[in-house]
């Protein structure tokens, strides 16, 4: 069912489904929220990091003696003091708190100073002498692939081949054989430039050593649990002696999901000095932390029938990973994982390679590895629709992946509301009166997407729950909810309160939320992969249902009413057949406490096992997939190439809104971030002559939209409850970003007839394509060749339709890609193309 009002009210009494204030809203807007940088402790020292000014070098010598003698300096650390490597993924433990002997990008930390104030620490950093032996810098995917036989240029001594960190080759079904049967085959190349999260809050951390030999670290982190593990490992301390408190994050977007060197360094300093030690990064340093969008070069070859059904797809991606592993192996898999969940792709091949380069490490940014292939896929579908003379909305609706199905790559789909999303944006945007009908310079474009509601597998292999919630019920009627989840502004604290309140029939304000503290709260894996509402929500519901059961036992006995007739609502527990007969919620707790002792419950959540069993099947599965469709309207100035976006209509299948206001906030925030990626954001570097420095590590010159560039957004929420989610809820924080970039690119084509196959759609690209078109050429801006790379032989996996088992088959085929690509697409069907507008 499509809910035309964004404010879907489940029932007048319920909390879930109603628009409510966030539990932390007042503190945020009055400036009372204590972010990490607001914290201060007596006798606190300040830490500064000395960062590498070489993109790639061996450290020959570090002399810290002048810094140590500098007045006000208390301690200095170098890589020798913290030799144990760490990293977010068990297979990429390739980072050090401070580089021991090898620096890998401008900004890599090599030494640290703790001093009585920040100025002193900064001055002392300048007194540290570092002698470097330069190594050949790797600037690009092409450099990385060419350096296999140059050991000096190898950024790491692990990986699949030289500077190739990871390569993947998977085939589901029989792609080549099926492709040969297609009526029409298109092969297109796309490039998606890297970009970064740009959270308003710069990372900050504070560490305190306690006399009993334990350490506490407050940090702006999205993943306190993973930081906890990294700290214990590098500091060689029992994890039980390490406490991580995630402070409220002033934005994360994936940029605070890795354990960071500065977090470990302040903890090491606290241990060394016995004093609290704080670090507050500059904006430039935040750019060096990065972990943002991988620059990705892609080839997509798709075979379709005359009526647009996909018969086979062959997808290849090359990711520029930067200097460290980070989440990169997962990112690489993600560039190939979710192509199959929106449209039926019966036969599918994916090859992907991530390389190391001497730049700040890439990682997970909102949409993690999937916005790039989604851009490629949705733009190619727009071209296919034109080739076949089918309306792009009609084409997409025709080929939707069905609900309750398993894809060719073994992803289990539950609820699937993409068709309703397409209908909603087509209707609201006036698509039928605008597409190919607006005057030259104005256009509309459509694109769709899907995203996981949490990853099916944890980052390190274990069989424990992904999220745990503990409830403490107080005889005052108050309820405390403890959970390891971390509010990064998305509202996870509020969702926790709403879920518990809804089940117990009380108000969210009655609930004290304690989150993100590894000493106090049960583990939640963190605020990443859009997992928290679904996983924490399910754990919270389970804990609350268990508490309700205990209270109902007590009240049932006390009032002599059968449990099945008891209702929890309006802060009361009462007989549904005789509503006057009941007790207040506080009385219910008192009754239960008197009968059974102190009332407390736990709940936890572990995702269901995915049917995929092949190597790599761990990336992509999720308990539920959200779906989004968007229409962008653009205005293109043909004299300048400048693109403005007046409005975006976006419909999101969220399953069930826990709080529709927060869902709309996530959708609008996604549109904003997507618009920045579509139009201007670029994380780029100078050439090796200029030492591969970041082009512009500042908020002024890294261009991100202001309110002037932000478009109007009309959000339509599609409610199609998914049985896997709490109350039917799915994710909302990432999926709605994905269609924005391809919708804008497709709209540019509708407006002026040029294809910008490269993100961002900068004015010079549009203008160049327009000039190209006026010369009678294709009118396209984008990559023209893939680098040559010998991928490993593909692992064959039979699809569910072929009666496969989800495991790899024996027998591998040789697999090589590369070389220039004909952009026109080989057309075997005589399809009448819709007329393109001429400038």
């Amino acid at each position, binding site marked *: 069912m499509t809910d035309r009002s964004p404010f879907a009210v489940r029932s007048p009494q319920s909390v879930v489904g109603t628009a409510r204030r966030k539990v932390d809203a007042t503190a945020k807007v009055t400036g009372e929220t204590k972010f990490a940088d607001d914290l201060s402790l007596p006798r606190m020292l300040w830490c500064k990091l000395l960062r590498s000014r070489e993109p790639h070098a061996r450290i020959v010598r570090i002399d810290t003696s002048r810094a140590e003698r500098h007045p006000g300096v208390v301690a200095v650390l170098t890589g020798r003091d913290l030799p144990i490597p760490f990293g977010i993924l068990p297979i990429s433990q390739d980072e050090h708190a401070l580089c021991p002997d090898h620096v890998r990008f401008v900004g890599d930390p090599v030494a640290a100073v703790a001093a009585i104030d920040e100025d002193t620490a900064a001055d002392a950093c300048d007194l540290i002498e570092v002698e470097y032996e330069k190594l050949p810098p790797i600037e690009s995917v092409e450099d990385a692939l060419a350096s296999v036989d140059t050991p000096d240029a190898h950024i790491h001594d692990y990986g699949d081949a030289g500077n190739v960190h990871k390569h993947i080759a998977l085939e589901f079904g029989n792609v080549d054989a099926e492709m040969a049967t297609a009526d029409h085959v298109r092969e297109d190349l796309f490039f998606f430039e890297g970009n970064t999260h740009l959270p308003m809050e710069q990372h900050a951390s504070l560490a305190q050593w306690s006399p009993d030999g334990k350490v506490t670290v407050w940090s702006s982190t999205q993943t306190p649990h993973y930081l906890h593990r990294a700290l214990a490992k590098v500091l060689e301390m029992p994890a039980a002696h390490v406490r991580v408190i995630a402070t409220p994050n002033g934005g994360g977007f994936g940029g605070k999901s890795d354990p960071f060197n500065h977090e470990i360094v302040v903890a090491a300093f606290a241990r060394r000095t016995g004093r609290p030690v704080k670090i507050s990064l*500059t904006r430039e340093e935040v750019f060096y932390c990065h972990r943002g969008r991988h620059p990705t070069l892609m080839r997509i070859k798709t075979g379709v029938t005359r009526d647009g059904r996909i018969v086979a797809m062959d997808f290849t991606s090359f990711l520029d990973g930067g200097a460290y592993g980070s989440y990169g192996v997962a990112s690489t898999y993600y560039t190939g994982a979710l192509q199959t969940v929106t449209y039926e792709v019966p036969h599918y091949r994916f090859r992907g390679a991530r390389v190391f380069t001497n730049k700040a490490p890439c990682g997970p940014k909102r949409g993690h590895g999937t916005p790039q292939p989604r851009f490629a896929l949705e733009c190619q579908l727009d071209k296919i629709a034109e080739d076949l003379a089918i309306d792009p909305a009609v084409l997409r609706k025709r080929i939707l992946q069905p609900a309750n199905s398993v894809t060719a790559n073994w992803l289990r789909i539950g609820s699937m509301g993409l068709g309703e999303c397409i209908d909603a944006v087509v209707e609201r945007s006036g698509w039928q009166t605008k597409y190919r009908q607006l005057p030259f310079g104005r256009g509309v474009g459509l694109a769709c997407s899907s995203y996981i509601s949490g990853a099916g597998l944890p980052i390190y292999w274990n069989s424990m729950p992904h999220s745990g919630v503990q409830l403490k019920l107080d005889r005052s009627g108050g309820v405390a909810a403890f959970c390891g989840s971390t509010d990064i502004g998305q509202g996870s604290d509020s969702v926790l309160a709403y879920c518990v309140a809804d089940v117990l029939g009380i108000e969210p304000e009655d609930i004290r939320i304690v989150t993100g503290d590894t000493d106090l709260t049960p583990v939640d894996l963190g605020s990443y992969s859009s997992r928290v509402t679904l996983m924490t929500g399910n754990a919270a519901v389970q804990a609350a249902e268990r508490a309700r059961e205990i209270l109902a036992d007590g009240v049932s006995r006390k009032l002599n009413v059968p449990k099945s007739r008891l209702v929890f609502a309006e802060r009361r527990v009462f007989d549904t057949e005789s509503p006057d007969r009941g007790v207040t919620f506080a009385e219910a707790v008192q009754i239960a406490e008197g009968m059974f002792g102190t009332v407390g419950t736990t709940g936890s959540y572990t995702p269901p096992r995915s049917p995929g069993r092949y190597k790599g099947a761990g990336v992509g599965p999720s308990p539920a997939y959200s779906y989004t469709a968007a229409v962008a309207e653009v205005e293109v100035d043909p004299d300048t190439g400048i693109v403005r976006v007046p409005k975006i209509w976006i419909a999101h299948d969220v399953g069930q809104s826990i709080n529709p206001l927060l869902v709309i906030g996530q959708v609008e925030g996604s549109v904003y971030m997507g618009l920045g990626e579509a139009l201007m954001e670029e994380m780029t570097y100078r050439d090796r002559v200029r030492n591969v420095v970041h082009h512009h*590590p500042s908020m002024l010159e890294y261009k991100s*939209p202001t309110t002037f560039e932000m478009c109007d957004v009309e959000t339509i929420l599609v409610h199609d409850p998914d049985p896997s989610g709490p109350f039917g809820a799915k994710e909302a924080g990432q999926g709605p970003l994905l269609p924005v970039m391809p919708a804008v690119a497709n709209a540019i084509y509708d407006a002026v007839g040029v294809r910008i196959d490269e993100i961002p759609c900068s004015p010079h690209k549009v203008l160049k394509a327009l000039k190209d078109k006026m010369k009678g050429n294709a009118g396209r801006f984008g990559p023209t060749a893939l680098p040559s790379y010998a991928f490993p032989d593909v692992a064959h996996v039979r699809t569910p339709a072929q009666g496969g088992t989800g495991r790899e088959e024996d027998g591998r085929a040789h697999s090589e890609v590369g070389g220039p690509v004909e952009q026109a697409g080989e057309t075997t069907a005589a399809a009448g193309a819709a007329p393109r507008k001429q400038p």
Partner: protein
Amino acid sequence: MLRLPRFTYHEPTTVGEAVRLFTEAMPDVAYVAGGTDLYPNMKRRQQTPATVIALHRIPELRAIAGTPESGMTIGACVTLTELAAHEAVRLRYPAVSHAAHVVSTPILRNMGTIGGNLLLDTRCNYYDQNYEWRKAINFCMKRDGEICWVAPSSPRCWAVQSSDGVPVAVALGADVTVTSVRGTRRLPAAGLYRNDGIQYLEKGPDELLVAYHLPPVRDGDWRATYRKLRRRDAFDFPVLGVAARVDFARDGSVSAARIVLGAVASYPQEISAAADAIIGTRLDEGAIGAAADAAYRPAKPMDNTDFTLAWRKEMVRVHVQRALQDIRAQNT
């Protein structure tokens, strides 16, 4: 966070006291008005004066005097917000008001002054960076280094004139008054700038800009405009500014013109060939196109701001054309 270096701070209340303090503290001294240019630069260690002399407590620098018919004098410490909103300026010198209004953001315009705007430090993507970043490229010749990274074989610095107010001041034929213990002089704004990213001002460091003089304007005898090109409609410095003043004869034909480009060189670049192309015309499309072509040819933006330099050069033609079309529209 980025922190300011230590410095001695003075707050004189008269111009006389300010210039005396400055002379005493020379050479390692700077004036500050709004601080929106100097302080960020100091945090990045682009400028590290030992002494800073603040001008905001000097009442005579905050006045706006005169009339459009006789010309107006704007005190150097009038903020950009005040200048943009001033009724006579807004109505009779809309290009001046507009250029002030499109600087950065409201908050910075509330602090930033017209004096600071006219003397804005030249900018460059290799210079407007943190100390640590600049260290990684061994600095540049504008500060602490030897080389110009924009053009490594060049003997000069190519940092860009990036003020919105400057091309307008030059196009209008405005004057400025500067003063020091050595005396006071009034000079045309056009004479204040030099095409060098480091020595970008034709004035002594001790000479304090105290006043900005707008020329007289009578009904319809001349029109002016300013067009700013930048990525976003807030925050950003221009990557191209086009200021134009066009004087009209009684018959409506162009009797004189001045077309000035900002942000394509280290100084406001006046393109007299573009002006020549419209003199004697009635700003028909052909004349405007010829002027746009004439401006396009000598414009040589370098790779030191946002956007690609080839595109910025292309935009000179488009924006000169649109600026002159603006003026034609104003005049009808």
